[in-house]
């Protein structure tokens, strides 16, 4: 699978945004807490795939990783991946060895991503989140 390198402005910009976003987590959690309730949940009682994101952010802001994962595991995993990859891209760029960016997902990831979305939603339904 062919790959390209992250350009310097992108790598450093991503790192700054990711770390800035992590630092602003309490503010983001506060904003998320003020958003209206999920209309699907209110109308049908069924959660949408992103239900629990606000509670997950609030739990992360208080350092409660378990509660955050329980609220919406996929959103928490995606958040960690975003911040982790951003930091890694920035550090690799500063170290003179820019990260490679894949042109396409490997086959396992193309199967795993939809499976993770469905599994996460089934969990939210089952756990009544």
């Amino acid at each position: 699978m062919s790959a390209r390198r992250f350009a310097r402005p992108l790598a450093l910009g991503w790192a700054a945004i990711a770390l800035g976003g992590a630092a602003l987590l309490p503010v983001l959690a506060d904003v998320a807490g003020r958003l209206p309730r999920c209309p699907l949940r209110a109308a049908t009682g069924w959660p949408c795939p992103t239900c629990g994101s606000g509670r997950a952010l609030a739990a992360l802001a208080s350092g409660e990783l378990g509660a955050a994962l329980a609220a919406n595991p996929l959103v928490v995993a995606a958040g960690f991946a975003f911040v982790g990859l951003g930091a890694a891209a920035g550090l690799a760029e500063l170290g003179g060895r820019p990260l490679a960016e894949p042109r396409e997902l490997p086959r396992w990831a193309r199967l795993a991503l939809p499976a993770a979305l469905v599994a996460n939603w089934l969990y939210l339904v089952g756990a009544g989140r």
Partner: protein
Amino acid sequence: MSEPGPPPPPAAGEPPGLPWERRAEHGAVAGFVDTLRRLVLEPAAAFRDAKRRGELVSPLAYAVLLAWLGVLAERTWSLLIGSSLVDLMPPEMRDAAALGFALSGIGIAIALVVVPVVVLLGLFVYGAILHLFLMLYGATRNSAAGFEGTLRALAWSSTAQLGQLVPFAGGLVATVWSVVLQTMALATFHRTTQGRALAAVLTPLLLCCVCFAVFFASIVALVVGGLASAAGGP
């Protein structure tokens, strides 16, 4: 000291860049206005001319500027309407209302500081999600722009926020316009089909907004059901 010469011409095959990306020659205001005009009136040609790689400040700054203008327009509109309402209020209520509007002015100042942070965070987070779906659908296979291309596409497509100016249906207009612009930009920047680009744009929208879609569909169903019952009589 020698005078700075004109910028070097773009290499063969490399897009020349939008006027905002070449504001050194166009001027900042003219470059911004001309870029906005092109993205509104001739988006396909504008996306063909936009740079795919290189400095990232121009597209990100364009998105922030548009968001700033949006906040200013919205707050100014609220203040104007609010100030005229103050004149209609009973005298004993005018002081409190005037203080409220003065605080709104402070709100504008705070919003102008917060907006860039929110816009940049939103662009990177949504860009990452969108790029993941682009890769899932094989839309980046022939792309030379990569994640950077997706970010650029999102930033230029924020032009669609102008749709918010439409009274009553602004949110819907902006959303549909945004989907159209993002699809065109992603197809151009990643050298993929519009079908793949559209699928990648719609998937996260549906995953996040499926709740809204079902909610509005339920309302439509209720209204249609109510009308049918009314037409059927007692």
